[in-house]
């Protein structure tokens, strides 16, 4: 993207493209006038850039070969075709990609698939099904907690995990007394959900849905 070098081909790019050619001509893999660095050493081994990784998704073990650059979000959507999880900003700012990993909500766009070997991932598809909705999914429908719906899977995964954080006693910015547990309140929910942006502005209905589920739990 940098204007000064957008047309520059790096030595490593050439090595990657040339890996097959090198094999075909049985030429030496490293014929460079500069000291060999890691990229040079691994360019002849494309499998270093495409490792296998395995983790469970919604309770099912899945394994796949991924480009090291693949985010967990892209692995879910493009490799496993679980398109419930949405790509909004792809920079951890909007929360549309929120999933639960080992029970905790994270932005799946800001983590690499290869970093999740052995982990347990829950996406919106794993929370409930059209015939058997998760209480949070049902509450979002009841309270119209969306307009376009694009942020909704992230809002739902985030709010389910968020209520567990409140239950576990994790404090927030608006928790008045750090020495006691936070109470479930709208002020707490609003602060804790600030990582999920809704451009339609369905926030008040989202809060009603969350409050109803929280009340039912209490």
């Amino acid at each position, binding site marked *: 993207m940098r204007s000064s070098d957008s047309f520059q081909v790096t030595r490593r790019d050439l090595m990657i493209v040339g890996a097959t050619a090198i094999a075909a001509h049985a030429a030496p893999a490293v014929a460079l006038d500069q000291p060999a660095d890691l990229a040079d050493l691994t360019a002849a081994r494309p499998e270093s*850039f495409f490792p296998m990784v395995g983790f469970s998704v919604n309770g099912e073990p899945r394994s796949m070969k991924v480009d090291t650059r693949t985010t967990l979000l892209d692995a879910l959507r493009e490799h496993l075709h679980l398109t419930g999880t949405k790509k909004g900003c792809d920079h951890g700012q909007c929360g549309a990609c929120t999933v639960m990993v080992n029970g905790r909500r994270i932005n799946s766009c800001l983590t690499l698939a290869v970093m999740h070997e052995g982990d347990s991932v829950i996406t919106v598809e794993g929370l409930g099904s059209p015939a058997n909705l998760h209480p949070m999914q049902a509450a979002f429908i009841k309270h119209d907690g969306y307009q376009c719906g694009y942020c909704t899977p992230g809002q739902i995964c985030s709010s389910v995990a968020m209520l567990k954080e409140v239950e576990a006693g994790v404090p927030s910015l608006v928790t008045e007394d750090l020495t006691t547990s936070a109470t479930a309140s709208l002020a707490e929910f609003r602060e804790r959900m600030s990582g999920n942006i809704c451009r339609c502005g369905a926030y008040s209905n989202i809060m009603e849905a969350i409050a109803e589920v929280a009340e039912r739990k209490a």
Partner: protein
Amino acid sequence: MRPFTYERASTPRAAAMAARMSGAKFIAGGTNLLDLMKLEIEAPTHLIDVNGLALDRIEATEDGGLKIGALVRNTDLAADPTVRKDYPLLSRALLAGASGQLRNKATTAGNLLQRTRCAYFYDPNMPCNKRQPGSGCSAIGGYTRSLAVVGGSEACIATHPSDMAVAMRALDAKVETVQSDGSERVIPIAEFHRLPGDTPHIETALEPGELITAAVLPKSIGGKQVYHKVRDRWSYAFALVSLGLIVHRDGTGRVALGGVAPKPWRDETAEAELPRGAKAVTAKLFARAKPTEENAFKIQLAERTLGAVLADARAEP
């Protein structure tokens, strides 16, 4: 994103050894690094995943302090009962930063190493001495409202974005590391972050390949501890001015500022003025300030924020 190879490190020493290779970088939470890699502002050729290292514990030290493993997540550190009781400033600072999702991933060491959010650093089409040494600074003479008023240089006026680091500075934390030759060292937080000078791309005292293993807090000094963050949006935004304050009954205490400088901004001679009030403290803190027309408001904002926080602290039992 540029292609890279990936390995999982088994011990801190092995990680630091592996990081000697050119183009190698550690990855822990990844919330800042991957963001920058997508923009190709960071372009490592090899990632060393340190998440498997057993550096995720919070332990009491022999002298009554607290050792926080490099991999302790922001959520867990903020929720730790000892931190909440003895270092509430640290809990409050952590909770003022980022979002719930990000705090679940972000680590203690990664937070210290956060890169600036200067808009010109983030725009690969603009010159930036931090991103491309020697290319110039687009911020100077550009849009500067969010940028540094003190501690900057002719080469860079970016701010350090961390809230946690401001609390760590006020609490006199120490950073423990292991170097690529296997030796260990301890860096006081005051010396950890560097001012830009004419090398703004060098942001910390870390050597190439050096891995942070822990942040250590000395025994709590008690007092009333407050973190107050002023920003354009009430939640999930970086600070215009933030303030970590520890104040004792006799009016003495400590103060560190965020959002105003390339590093957490604390001056021990300035905080000696705390009993005389906010104006006396900020006069010293900003004695060498070089604000622009757009960001000069931060100095008055810092003074008023400190004044308000001090008044609140005195009013409460």
